[in-house]
């Protein structure tokens, strides 16, 4: 099952490359770099019941994104991004939250962005998320046997304001989705994958460079 993950990502990358190749080229030659800081909220990775029902989810995590991309034409941009998000994985019951382990989520994605107006754009993303538990305590967690790499798909929207010919500041909202399970969960008998929805908000600072005039 896990061997399908990179294959799915590769398929997505190839699809986006084909789209990029097929698009008009009159605005090519411009690259842009973006740094984004924000926060991410994730739905539960696991729902289980031992004596009482509980969920296991990452706490709201600060995020840092770095993206590099190219202008395909006046309407479309293609970007490759990596996101770092780190927070505590927590077990939540009616009685409160108990931290389990610090958890980093690395997300790599390819985004195709479409300009909707001079100040707004929307994007679709595909990629993969890699969960990386920290510390020595992972032996007693759902990540004891593996920390999976999982394919994601997502959508996003941005409003932006140009503050100089090369600099743009933007406000981003993004959503992505993936299915989650681990070998330890399956070994325990939690055999179905769980859908995980993640929402993030962030502020982006972008700089563009033209190696030739469009």
């Amino acid at each position, binding site marked *: 099952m896990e061997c399908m993950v990179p294959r799915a990502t590769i398929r997505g990358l190839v699809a986006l490359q084909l789209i990029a190749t097929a698009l008009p080229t009159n605005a090519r030659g411009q690259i842009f770099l973006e740094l984004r800081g924000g926060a991410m909220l994730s739905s539960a990775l696991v729902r289980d019941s031992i004596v009482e029902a509980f969920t296991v989810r990452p706490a709201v995590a600060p995020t840092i994104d770095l993206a590099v991309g190219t202008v395909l034409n006046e309407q479309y941009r293609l970007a490759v991004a990596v996101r770092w998000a780190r927070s505590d994985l927590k077990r939540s019951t009616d009685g409160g939250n108990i931290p389990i382990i610090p958890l980093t989520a690395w997300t790599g994605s390819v985004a195709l962005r479409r300009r909707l107006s001079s100040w707004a754009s929307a994007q679709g993303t595909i990629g993969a998320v890699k969960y990386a538990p920290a510390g020595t305590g992972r032996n007693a967690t759902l990540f*004891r046997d593996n920390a999976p790499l999982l394919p994601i798909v997502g959508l996003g929207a941005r409003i932006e304001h140009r503050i100089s010919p090369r600099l743009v500041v933007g406000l981003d909202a993004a959503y992505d989705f993936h299915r989650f399970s681990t070998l330890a969960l399956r070994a325990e008998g*939690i055999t179905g994958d769980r859908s995980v929805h993640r929402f993030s908000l962030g502020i982006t600072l972008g700089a563009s460079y033209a190696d030739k005039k469009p």
Partner: protein
Amino acid sequence: MQTRSRSVAALASLLLLGACDSPNAPDRSSFYEFRLSPSDPVFHWPATALPVRFYADQVGALPEYVALGVRMWERQFLYGEFRGELVSDSADADVILSLQGSAPPDGPLTDDPPVTSCTGVTSVPPTTELGSGQLVYTERFQVQLQWFSRGSPSDIANCLARVTAHEIGHTLGVFNHSPTPDDLMARSPTAREPTARDRATVQILYHVRSDILPFSHGLLPP
């Protein structure tokens, strides 16, 4: 218009994917009583006391057996309920394991049938009541292990590893013995590691409220 339809279709696909949630809850119905008597208070290590610190006498391979046993019990949990570590100073320990007599003969762990060539006993410490009515242990947990000249060196090593894991199970709060002889927590264990019943039992134990706090100098009156 066509672009908008495509966007709506993409969003609908995402939502459909999200709707396909079918996790199955595991069966944890097969467990045994972890208290000696149903009226006894419950003990398990609280999250704030983790990792539990184990000290093992530097006799033979005892530290190795303790490390194996701790790792074995950690793996019975999915949600970080228990973690342990070995410490080099008994003064820092929550649990002290000692091996009586001389070092046992050196023998590798094997899959040979179990031979009873060792015993172990866990001393559950006495409790006292704090002003708030909260029970607290007045001492650390102590585990005494002993080996006999019966069987091969590997039989003795297998027995010590098995009984060490069993006694560590007691220090987790499973004070009772399993009525099923196949379980690690049976009175005379033959299993080398916790079974599904042991796992269900300890998981349930760590999801009920603990009535007793572990030993801590700071909690006890002078």
